[in-house]
Protein backbone atom coordinates (compact mmCIF):
# COMPACT_ATOMS: atom_id res chain seq x y z
CA UNK A 1 0.00 0.00 0.00
CA UNK A 2 1.81 3.00 1.10
CA UNK A 3 4.95 3.34 3.10
CA UNK A 4 4.72 6.29 5.47
CA UNK A 5 2.16 7.90 3.21
CA UNK A 6 3.86 7.36 -0.13
CA UNK A 7 2.33 4.96 -2.59
CA UNK A 8 4.82 2.36 -3.68
CA UNK A 9 3.25 1.04 -6.86
CA UNK A 10 3.92 3.59 -9.52
CA UNK A 11 2.99 1.97 -12.78
CA UNK A 12 0.76 -0.93 -13.69
CA UNK A 13 1.11 -2.50 -17.12
CA UNK A 14 -1.82 -4.58 -18.28
CA UNK A 15 -0.77 -6.72 -21.20
CA UNK A 16 -3.27 -8.77 -23.15
CA UNK A 17 -3.97 -10.41 -26.45
CA UNK A 18 -7.00 -9.40 -28.47
CA UNK A 19 -7.46 -12.81 -29.99
CA UNK A 20 -6.40 -15.55 -27.59
CA UNK A 21 -8.84 -17.46 -25.41
CA UNK A 22 -6.68 -17.14 -22.33
CA UNK A 23 -7.12 -13.38 -22.52
CA UNK A 24 -10.88 -13.56 -22.38
CA UNK A 25 -10.99 -12.68 -18.71
CA UNK A 26 -8.62 -9.77 -19.00
CA UNK A 27 -10.53 -8.33 -21.92
CA UNK A 28 -13.66 -8.32 -19.78
CA UNK A 29 -11.63 -6.84 -16.94
CA UNK A 30 -10.36 -4.02 -19.13
CA UNK A 31 -13.83 -3.26 -20.29
CA UNK A 32 -15.65 -3.28 -16.97
CA UNK A 33 -13.27 -2.97 -14.01
CA UNK A 34 -10.25 -1.13 -15.28
CA UNK A 35 -11.80 2.34 -15.71
CA UNK A 36 -13.09 2.29 -12.14
CA UNK A 37 -9.75 0.98 -10.90
CA UNK A 38 -7.96 3.78 -12.68
CA UNK A 39 -10.32 6.33 -11.27
CA UNK A 40 -9.95 5.05 -7.72
CA UNK A 41 -6.17 5.13 -7.91
CA UNK A 42 -5.25 8.47 -9.35
CA UNK A 43 -1.70 8.13 -8.05
CA UNK A 44 -1.18 5.14 -10.31
CA UNK A 45 -0.19 5.15 -13.94
CA UNK A 46 -2.07 2.39 -15.73
CA UNK A 47 -0.93 1.35 -19.18
CA UNK A 48 -2.50 -1.27 -21.41
CA UNK A 49 -0.29 -3.11 -23.78
CA UNK A 50 -1.29 -5.36 -26.64
CA UNK A 51 0.96 -8.38 -27.10
CA UNK A 52 -0.57 -10.77 -29.59
CA UNK A 53 -0.06 -14.46 -29.22
CA UNK A 54 1.05 -14.31 -25.59
CA UNK A 55 -0.72 -15.05 -22.39
CA UNK A 56 -1.87 -11.97 -20.51
CA UNK A 57 -0.07 -10.65 -17.46
CA UNK A 58 -0.02 -7.74 -15.05
CA UNK A 59 3.24 -6.03 -14.35
CA UNK A 60 3.73 -3.69 -11.45
CA UNK A 61 6.64 -1.28 -11.30
CA UNK A 62 7.44 -0.11 -7.80
CA UNK A 63 9.12 2.90 -6.39
CA UNK A 64 12.07 0.88 -5.17
CA UNK A 65 12.71 -0.18 -8.77
CA UNK A 66 11.44 -3.68 -8.19
CA UNK A 67 8.92 -5.14 -10.53
CA UNK A 68 6.42 -7.86 -10.01
CA UNK A 69 4.73 -9.83 -12.77
CA UNK A 70 1.55 -11.82 -12.29
CA UNK A 71 0.35 -14.18 -14.97
CA UNK A 72 -3.40 -13.92 -15.37
CA UNK A 73 -4.11 -16.41 -18.10
CA UNK A 74 -7.53 -18.01 -18.05
CA UNK A 75 -8.59 -16.06 -14.97
CA UNK A 76 -11.96 -14.42 -14.54
CA UNK A 77 -12.21 -10.68 -14.33
CA UNK A 78 -12.84 -10.75 -10.58
CA UNK A 79 -9.67 -12.72 -9.99
CA UNK A 80 -7.74 -10.30 -12.14
CA UNK A 81 -9.12 -7.38 -10.15
CA UNK A 82 -7.99 -9.14 -6.98
CA UNK A 83 -4.49 -9.54 -8.37
CA UNK A 84 -4.38 -5.93 -9.44
CA UNK A 85 -5.43 -4.72 -6.00
CA UNK A 86 -2.85 -7.02 -4.44
CA UNK A 87 -0.18 -5.44 -6.58
CA UNK A 88 -1.39 -2.05 -5.51
CA UNK A 89 -1.50 -3.02 -1.82
CA UNK A 90 2.02 -4.37 -1.81
CA UNK A 91 5.15 -2.45 -1.06
CA UNK A 92 7.22 -4.15 -3.73
CA UNK A 93 9.72 -5.68 -1.38
CA UNK A 94 11.14 -9.07 -2.10
CA UNK A 95 9.03 -11.91 -0.77
CA UNK A 96 11.10 -13.56 1.89
CA UNK A 97 10.18 -15.58 4.91
CA UNK A 98 9.79 -13.15 7.77
CA UNK A 99 12.33 -13.62 10.51
CA UNK A 100 10.18 -11.64 12.89
CA UNK A 101 6.79 -10.10 12.77
CA UNK A 102 7.87 -7.17 14.83
CA UNK A 103 10.32 -4.73 13.30
CA UNK A 104 11.64 -2.01 15.54
CA UNK A 105 14.53 0.37 15.77
CA UNK A 106 14.25 0.75 19.51
CA UNK A 107 14.08 -2.68 21.04
CA UNK A 108 13.99 -1.60 24.65
CA UNK A 109 12.54 1.33 26.57
CA UNK A 110 13.35 0.45 30.15
CA UNK A 111 16.68 -1.21 29.45
CA UNK A 112 17.62 -4.64 28.24
CA UNK A 113 17.23 -7.38 30.79
CA UNK A 114 20.38 -8.99 32.02
CA UNK A 115 21.05 -11.75 34.49
CA UNK A 116 22.37 -9.46 37.19
CA UNK A 117 19.45 -7.08 37.04
CA UNK A 118 18.06 -6.36 40.49
CA UNK A 119 14.37 -5.53 40.57
CA UNK A 120 13.25 -3.65 43.64
CA UNK A 121 10.23 -5.22 45.14
Amino acid at each position, binding site marked *: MALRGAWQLQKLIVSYCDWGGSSRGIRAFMESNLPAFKENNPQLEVVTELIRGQHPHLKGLYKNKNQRVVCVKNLTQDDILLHATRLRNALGRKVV*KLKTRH*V*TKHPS*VQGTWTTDLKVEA
Partner: protein
Amino acid sequence: MANRRCLQTVIHHYSTNPFLQPLKTLVPTLQQILTLPNPLSPQTPTPNSLHVFSNLTPIFHPQHKPTCHFSSRRSDNEEEEEEEENDDEEEEEEEEGSEEDDDDEGVSAASNSGVKREYTAEEKEEAAAAIGYKVIGPLQRSERVFKPYEPVFAVVQIGSHQFKVSNGDSIFTERLKFCEVNEKKVKELSFLANLILNRVLMLGSQSQTIIGRPILPDAAVHAVVEEHALDAKVIIFKKKRRKNYRRTKGHRQELTKLRITDIQGIEKPEPVPTNKPEKTAVKKLEKTSVKKPEKVAVAV
Protein backbone atom coordinates in the same frame (compact mmCIF):
# COMPACT_ATOMS: atom_id res chain seq x y z
CA MET B 1 -36.94 -44.15 14.70
CA ALA B 2 -38.72 -43.05 11.57
CA ASN B 3 -42.05 -44.23 12.94
CA ARG B 4 -41.51 -42.30 16.11
CA ARG B 5 -40.66 -39.15 14.22
CA CYS B 6 -43.88 -39.53 12.22
CA LEU B 7 -45.81 -39.86 15.45
CA GLN B 8 -44.10 -36.79 16.87
CA THR B 9 -44.97 -34.68 13.92
CA VAL B 10 -48.56 -35.90 14.05
CA ILE B 11 -48.77 -35.07 17.72
CA HIS B 12 -47.29 -31.68 17.24
CA HIS B 13 -49.62 -31.01 14.40
CA TYR B 14 -52.60 -31.88 16.55
CA SER B 15 -51.41 -29.91 19.52
CA THR B 16 -50.79 -26.79 17.46
CA ASN B 17 -53.86 -26.90 15.28
CA PRO B 18 -56.73 -25.01 16.93
CA PHE B 19 -59.43 -26.88 15.05
CA LEU B 20 -58.48 -30.17 16.58
CA GLN B 21 -58.90 -29.11 20.22
CA PRO B 22 -60.94 -32.15 21.27
CA LEU B 23 -58.15 -34.40 20.11
CA LYS B 24 -55.74 -32.69 22.47
CA THR B 25 -56.85 -34.98 25.23
CA LEU B 26 -55.31 -37.79 23.25
CA VAL B 27 -51.94 -36.16 23.13
CA PRO B 28 -50.59 -37.06 26.58
CA THR B 29 -51.47 -40.70 26.09
CA LEU B 30 -49.77 -40.68 22.76
CA GLN B 31 -46.77 -39.09 24.38
CA GLN B 32 -46.61 -41.94 26.84
CA ILE B 33 -46.75 -44.42 24.03
CA LEU B 34 -43.89 -42.55 22.48
CA THR B 35 -41.78 -42.52 25.57
CA LEU B 36 -42.16 -46.17 26.36
CA PRO B 37 -40.00 -47.52 23.54
CA ASN B 38 -37.34 -44.98 24.41
CA PRO B 39 -34.45 -47.11 25.66
CA LEU B 40 -32.93 -44.30 27.68
CA SER B 41 -35.96 -43.64 29.87
CA PRO B 42 -36.45 -45.87 32.90
CA GLN B 43 -39.49 -48.07 32.92
CA THR B 44 -41.30 -46.36 35.78
CA PRO B 45 -43.82 -44.57 33.65
CA THR B 46 -45.69 -41.63 35.11
CA PRO B 47 -43.20 -39.08 36.46
CA ASN B 48 -40.59 -39.82 33.88
CA SER B 49 -42.93 -39.54 30.99
CA LEU B 50 -43.64 -35.97 31.96
CA HIS B 51 -39.95 -35.33 32.16
CA VAL B 52 -39.30 -36.76 28.76
CA PHE B 53 -42.21 -34.83 27.43
CA SER B 54 -40.54 -31.62 28.50
CA ASN B 55 -37.40 -32.84 26.81
CA LEU B 56 -39.19 -33.63 23.64
CA THR B 57 -40.55 -30.18 22.98
CA PRO B 58 -37.29 -28.56 21.83
CA ILE B 59 -36.89 -31.32 19.26
CA PHE B 60 -39.90 -29.96 17.43
CA HIS B 61 -38.51 -26.49 17.00
CA PRO B 62 -35.82 -27.11 14.44
CA GLN B 63 -38.28 -29.08 12.38
CA HIS B 64 -40.88 -26.39 12.24
CA LYS B 65 -39.22 -23.03 12.59
CA PRO B 66 -36.82 -23.07 9.66
CA THR B 67 -39.53 -23.82 7.19
CA CYS B 68 -41.13 -20.58 8.25
CA HIS B 69 -37.76 -18.88 7.97
CA PHE B 70 -37.21 -20.24 4.56
CA SER B 71 -40.58 -19.22 3.31
CA SER B 72 -40.24 -15.72 4.67
CA ARG B 73 -36.69 -15.45 3.46
CA ARG B 74 -37.54 -16.53 0.01
CA SER B 75 -39.92 -13.62 -0.26
CA ASP B 76 -37.22 -11.38 1.21
CA ASN B 77 -34.77 -12.50 -1.37
CA GLU B 78 -37.17 -11.67 -4.09
CA GLU B 79 -37.59 -8.20 -2.71
CA GLU B 80 -34.01 -7.30 -1.94
CA GLU B 81 -30.95 -9.30 -2.77
CA GLU B 82 -28.70 -7.98 -0.04
CA GLU B 83 -30.84 -9.18 2.86
CA GLU B 84 -28.64 -9.94 5.82
CA GLU B 85 -28.68 -13.34 7.43
CA ASN B 86 -28.53 -13.87 11.12
CA ASP B 87 -26.09 -16.35 12.52
CA ASP B 88 -28.93 -18.33 14.05
CA GLU B 89 -30.49 -18.93 10.74
CA GLU B 90 -27.26 -20.12 9.30
CA GLU B 91 -26.82 -22.60 12.09
CA GLU B 92 -30.28 -23.90 11.58
CA GLU B 93 -29.56 -24.23 7.94
CA GLU B 94 -26.61 -26.41 8.70
CA GLU B 95 -28.64 -28.54 11.04
CA GLU B 96 -31.37 -28.88 8.52
CA GLY B 97 -29.09 -29.55 5.61
CA SER B 98 -29.61 -33.28 5.71
CA GLU B 99 -33.35 -33.18 6.18
CA GLU B 100 -34.41 -30.40 3.88
CA ASP B 101 -35.07 -30.91 0.22
CA ASP B 102 -32.68 -30.01 -2.54
CA ASP B 103 -34.79 -26.98 -3.22
CA ASP B 104 -33.91 -25.29 0.04
CA GLU B 105 -30.25 -26.12 -0.27
CA GLY B 106 -30.28 -24.49 -3.63
CA VAL B 107 -31.63 -21.34 -2.04
CA SER B 108 -29.00 -21.33 0.69
CA ALA B 109 -26.26 -21.98 -1.82
CA ALA B 110 -27.51 -19.15 -3.95
CA SER B 111 -27.53 -16.78 -0.99
CA ASN B 112 -24.05 -17.87 0.13
CA SER B 113 -22.44 -17.96 -3.26
CA GLY B 114 -22.61 -14.21 -3.72
CA VAL B 115 -19.20 -12.87 -4.71
CA LYS B 116 -18.63 -11.08 -1.42
CA ARG B 117 -20.75 -11.12 1.66
CA GLU B 118 -22.01 -7.70 2.50
CA TYR B 119 -21.49 -6.62 6.05
CA THR B 120 -23.31 -3.91 7.88
CA ALA B 121 -21.35 -1.35 9.82
CA GLU B 122 -22.24 -2.95 13.15
CA GLU B 123 -21.14 -6.38 12.03
CA LYS B 124 -17.87 -4.96 10.82
CA GLU B 125 -17.32 -3.24 14.12
CA GLU B 126 -18.13 -6.39 16.05
CA ALA B 127 -15.78 -8.51 14.01
CA ALA B 128 -13.06 -5.93 14.39
CA ALA B 129 -13.63 -5.63 18.13
CA ALA B 130 -13.35 -9.38 18.52
CA ILE B 131 -9.85 -9.21 17.09
CA GLY B 132 -8.97 -6.06 18.99
CA TYR B 133 -8.99 -3.16 16.62
CA LYS B 134 -11.28 -0.44 15.42
CA VAL B 135 -11.17 1.21 12.04
CA ILE B 136 -11.36 4.98 12.25
CA GLY B 137 -11.30 5.65 8.58
CA PRO B 138 -8.95 6.91 5.97
CA LEU B 139 -6.23 9.24 6.97
CA GLN B 140 -6.17 12.73 5.62
CA ARG B 141 -3.08 13.71 3.76
CA SER B 142 -2.82 16.82 5.87
CA GLU B 143 -2.65 14.91 9.14
CA ARG B 144 0.87 14.48 10.35
CA VAL B 145 0.75 11.21 12.21
CA PHE B 146 4.31 10.04 11.80
CA LYS B 147 6.08 11.45 14.82
CA PRO B 148 9.58 11.00 16.09
CA TYR B 149 10.26 8.22 18.53
CA GLU B 150 9.05 8.53 22.08
CA PRO B 151 10.45 6.25 24.78
CA VAL B 152 7.11 4.64 25.57
CA PHE B 153 6.00 1.11 24.88
CA ALA B 154 2.73 -0.77 24.93
CA VAL B 155 1.81 -4.42 24.74
CA VAL B 156 -1.15 -4.88 22.45
CA GLN B 157 -3.08 -7.93 21.49
CA ILE B 158 -4.32 -8.43 17.96
CA GLY B 159 -6.16 -11.64 17.46
CA SER B 160 -4.11 -14.22 19.30
CA HIS B 161 -0.81 -12.42 18.97
CA GLN B 162 0.70 -9.95 21.38
CA PHE B 163 3.21 -7.35 20.35
CA LYS B 164 5.38 -5.04 22.38
CA VAL B 165 5.31 -1.93 20.30
CA SER B 166 6.48 1.60 20.55
CA ASN B 167 6.05 4.56 18.30
CA GLY B 168 7.34 4.00 14.80
CA ASP B 169 7.49 0.22 14.92
CA SER B 170 5.99 -1.89 12.21
CA ILE B 171 4.30 -5.19 12.93
CA PHE B 172 2.92 -7.91 10.74
CA THR B 173 -0.44 -9.27 11.78
CA GLU B 174 -2.77 -11.69 10.20
CA ARG B 175 -4.80 -9.95 7.58
CA LEU B 176 -7.22 -7.49 9.13
CA LYS B 177 -10.54 -7.15 7.42
CA PHE B 178 -12.37 -3.95 6.59
CA CYS B 179 -9.36 -1.69 6.51
CA GLU B 180 -9.09 -1.33 2.81
CA VAL B 181 -8.54 2.04 1.32
CA ASN B 182 -11.88 3.67 1.12
CA GLU B 183 -12.12 3.90 -2.60
CA LYS B 184 -14.56 6.75 -2.87
CA LYS B 185 -12.55 9.02 -0.66
CA VAL B 186 -9.32 8.44 -2.48
CA LYS B 187 -10.26 11.25 -4.77
CA GLU B 188 -10.17 13.61 -1.83
CA LEU B 189 -6.51 12.75 -1.38
CA SER B 190 -7.09 10.68 1.70
CA PHE B 191 -5.77 7.23 2.04
CA LEU B 192 -4.11 4.86 4.46
CA ALA B 193 -6.70 3.25 6.68
CA ASN B 194 -6.23 4.43 10.24
CA LEU B 195 -6.73 2.03 13.13
CA ILE B 196 -7.02 2.02 16.89
CA LEU B 197 -5.78 -1.07 18.67
CA ASN B 198 -7.80 -1.05 21.85
CA ARG B 199 -6.70 -4.25 23.55
CA VAL B 200 -3.75 -2.83 25.41
CA LEU B 201 -2.33 -5.11 28.06
CA MET B 202 0.49 -3.01 29.36
CA LEU B 203 1.99 0.42 29.05
CA GLY B 204 5.41 1.55 30.07
CA SER B 205 7.80 4.41 29.93
CA GLN B 206 11.20 4.84 31.44
CA SER B 207 9.85 5.69 34.85
CA GLN B 208 6.41 4.16 34.92
CA THR B 209 4.72 0.87 34.22
CA ILE B 210 0.98 0.29 34.01
CA ILE B 211 -0.29 -3.24 33.86
CA GLY B 212 -3.87 -3.95 32.91
CA ARG B 213 -5.93 -6.78 34.29
CA PRO B 214 -6.17 -7.95 31.66
CA ILE B 215 -6.59 -4.83 29.54
CA LEU B 216 -6.35 -1.12 30.07
CA PRO B 217 -9.69 0.30 28.95
CA ASP B 218 -8.65 3.92 28.47
CA ALA B 219 -5.40 3.26 26.68
CA ALA B 220 -5.20 3.20 22.91
CA VAL B 221 -2.58 2.53 20.33
CA HIS B 222 -2.96 4.17 16.96
CA ALA B 223 -1.74 2.42 13.88
CA VAL B 224 -1.82 2.81 10.15
CA VAL B 225 -2.19 0.08 7.56
CA GLU B 226 0.78 0.03 5.27
CA GLU B 227 0.47 -3.14 3.32
CA HIS B 228 -1.71 -6.13 2.65
CA ALA B 229 0.61 -8.76 1.30
CA LEU B 230 1.19 -12.45 1.08
CA ASP B 231 3.82 -14.14 3.17
CA ALA B 232 6.43 -16.39 1.63
CA LYS B 233 5.14 -19.70 0.43
CA VAL B 234 4.99 -22.54 2.91
CA ILE B 235 5.01 -26.04 1.51
CA ILE B 236 2.94 -28.62 3.30
CA PHE B 237 4.26 -32.04 2.44
CA LYS B 238 2.58 -35.20 3.65
CA LYS B 239 4.08 -38.59 3.19
CA LYS B 240 3.34 -42.06 4.41
CA ARG B 241 6.08 -44.61 4.31
CA ARG B 242 5.78 -47.57 1.98
CA LYS B 243 2.26 -46.57 0.95
CA ASN B 244 3.01 -44.61 -2.18
CA TYR B 245 1.36 -41.55 -0.63
CA ARG B 246 2.68 -38.07 -1.15
CA ARG B 247 0.75 -34.85 -1.06
CA THR B 248 2.20 -31.41 -1.58
CA LYS B 249 0.30 -28.27 -0.94
CA GLY B 250 1.44 -24.69 -0.98
CA HIS B 251 0.12 -21.97 1.25
CA ARG B 252 0.66 -18.25 1.37
CA GLN B 253 -0.67 -16.50 4.42
CA GLU B 254 -2.22 -13.10 4.04
CA LEU B 255 -0.57 -10.55 6.27
CA THR B 256 -1.16 -6.93 7.11
CA LYS B 257 1.67 -4.62 7.93
CA LEU B 258 0.83 -1.99 10.50
CA ARG B 259 2.88 0.96 11.56
CA ILE B 260 2.36 2.26 15.06
CA THR B 261 1.84 5.99 15.06
CA ASP B 262 0.85 6.84 18.58
CA ILE B 263 0.42 5.41 22.06
CA GLN B 264 -2.12 7.04 24.32
CA GLY B 265 -2.87 6.56 27.99
CA ILE B 266 0.49 7.16 29.58
CA GLU B 267 2.21 10.42 30.27
CA LYS B 268 5.17 10.77 28.02
CA PRO B 269 8.44 12.29 29.08
CA GLU B 270 9.00 15.70 27.61
CA PRO B 271 10.36 15.59 24.11
CA VAL B 272 14.05 15.86 23.82
CA PRO B 273 15.03 19.40 22.81
CA THR B 274 16.12 19.84 19.26
CA ASN B 275 19.61 21.22 19.83
CA LYS B 276 21.65 18.11 19.46
CA PRO B 277 24.92 18.70 21.30
CA GLU B 278 23.10 18.95 24.63
CA LYS B 279 21.10 15.81 23.96
CA THR B 280 22.98 13.39 26.17
CA ALA B 281 23.16 15.70 29.11
CA VAL B 282 19.48 16.51 28.91
CA LYS B 283 18.60 12.84 28.73
CA LYS B 284 20.49 12.06 31.88
CA LEU B 285 18.83 14.94 33.64
CA GLU B 286 15.44 13.72 32.58
CA LYS B 287 16.14 10.26 33.81
CA THR B 288 17.03 11.47 37.25
CA SER B 289 14.25 14.01 37.45
CA VAL B 290 11.50 11.76 36.23
CA LYS B 291 12.34 8.85 38.48
CA LYS B 292 9.99 9.56 41.33
CA PRO B 293 8.50 6.64 43.22
CA GLU B 294 5.07 8.31 43.46
CA LYS B 295 4.58 8.08 39.77
CA VAL B 296 4.83 4.33 39.69
CA ALA B 297 1.25 3.31 39.34
CA VAL B 298 1.27 -0.44 39.07
CA ALA B 299 -2.29 -1.66 39.10
CA VAL B 300 -1.90 -5.33 39.74
